[in-house]
């Protein structure tokens, strides 16, 4: 029997949260923001937005999400909607900011080049969604695995096994096998979500 997707990658979780938001539960909104704010942040960062502009993007995107919740009752569509909406808002914000800078510094001559920059970043949306999916899957693996995998694959620079051994209280010789078991758990969660055809992005 195929294991059921559960926890953070459960496509029904977003649907339940959306339904609860529509019922007026602010806690559900907090949970929805907590789950997906990093996706919005990652796309905004890709446009190299300053804090002030990033704040405007968050405001616009989450306001649009809140207003459009009734259209997103199918939780599987939510991540794709959030990603494309954020990209559109971030791109508009970045271009507006760069136009202002261009007018102040060098006149409008630079505008065409600046718009080209915006095009290049949009092409990475699929990658950002995939990264978000992996982050959500990470949230569902046991805490010990989460810490080990995060240290090895999200930290820069990558800590040495000796450093990790001290930090996590695990013998150096156990790190390799533990890392492999943890990676299997992470892959298993991702594979089930994709095989069921209803991963969080609906891809």
């Amino acid at each position, binding site marked *: 029997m195929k294991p059921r997707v559960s926890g953070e990658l459960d496509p029904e979780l977003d649907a339940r949260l959306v339904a609860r938001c529509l019922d007026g539960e*602010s*806690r559900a909104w907090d*949970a929805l923001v907590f*789950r997906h*704010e990093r996706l919005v*942040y*990652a796309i905004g960062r890709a446009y190299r937005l300053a804090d002030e502009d990033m704040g405007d993007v968050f405001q616009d995107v989450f306001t649009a*999400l809140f207003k459009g919740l009734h259209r997103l009752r199918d939780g599987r569509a939510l991540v794709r909607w959030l990603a494309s909406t954020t990209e559109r808002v971030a791109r508009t914000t970045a271009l507006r900011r760069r136009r202002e800078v261009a007018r102040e510094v060098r006149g409008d001559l630079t505008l065409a080049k600046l718009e080209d920059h915006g095009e290049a970043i949009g092409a990475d949306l699929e990658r950002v969604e995939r*990264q978000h999916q*992996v982050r959500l899957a990470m949230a569902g693996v046991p805490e010990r695995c989460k810490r080990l995998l995060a240290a090895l694959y999200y930290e820069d620079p990558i800590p040495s096994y000796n450093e990790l051994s001290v930090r996590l209280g695990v013998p150096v010789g156990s790190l390799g096998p533990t890392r492999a078991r943890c990676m299997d758990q992470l892959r298993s969660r991702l594979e089930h979500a994709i095989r069921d055809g209803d991963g969080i992005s609906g891809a």
Partner: protein
Amino acid sequence: MAERSRDRHLDTRAALDFLEYRLEAGERRRVEEHLGRPCDTCRERLRELGELLTTMRDDRAGEVPRFLHERAIGVFAPAGTPSPARRLVDAIAELLFDSQVAPLTTAARRAVGGARRLRFSLGAHSVELEVEREGSQLKVSGQLHTADAQLWSVEGEAGGERRSVHPDAAGKFVLYGLPWDTLTLRLRGEAEVFRLPTIEHEQ
């Protein structure tokens, strides 16, 4: 014998070691010979794992700054019209168990290491905590026992710093990054807020 060794498929550990250049020269050569036979199964395993590692290592957006999180949260309850949950008066959680007062059995101590264990009653719900020191910081892990635990939030404050986290679907959560100092915790549900008695640490 060497022939049989070259026939051995890669398990996750060997594949990760190969991708991360952690194999000794001889073992790396054996893997390369095996892949060159060719072995489509192992090539596919390497390709999948390699893609996953690249996805994780390219994910460098970092954590979402608190001001952005609050901006997104604030969309649900606009300034001046706090949600009903935010108007709730904190209820005080009742301490049921503290390993600092009632020492654990040897077997239980072996299971949790040096962590201090606490259990609180939150009306119809309860929460178990493990508080331990990691260098100059606190690590607070726990499990909230209630329906829809992922809709709650756990807010910790120590040494003038605050962190918050949403439990997963099983109610489990971990708070990292607070300084080792007197700890206050609040658990917020949709209709209730519980403040835990201040947690002092033995020196």
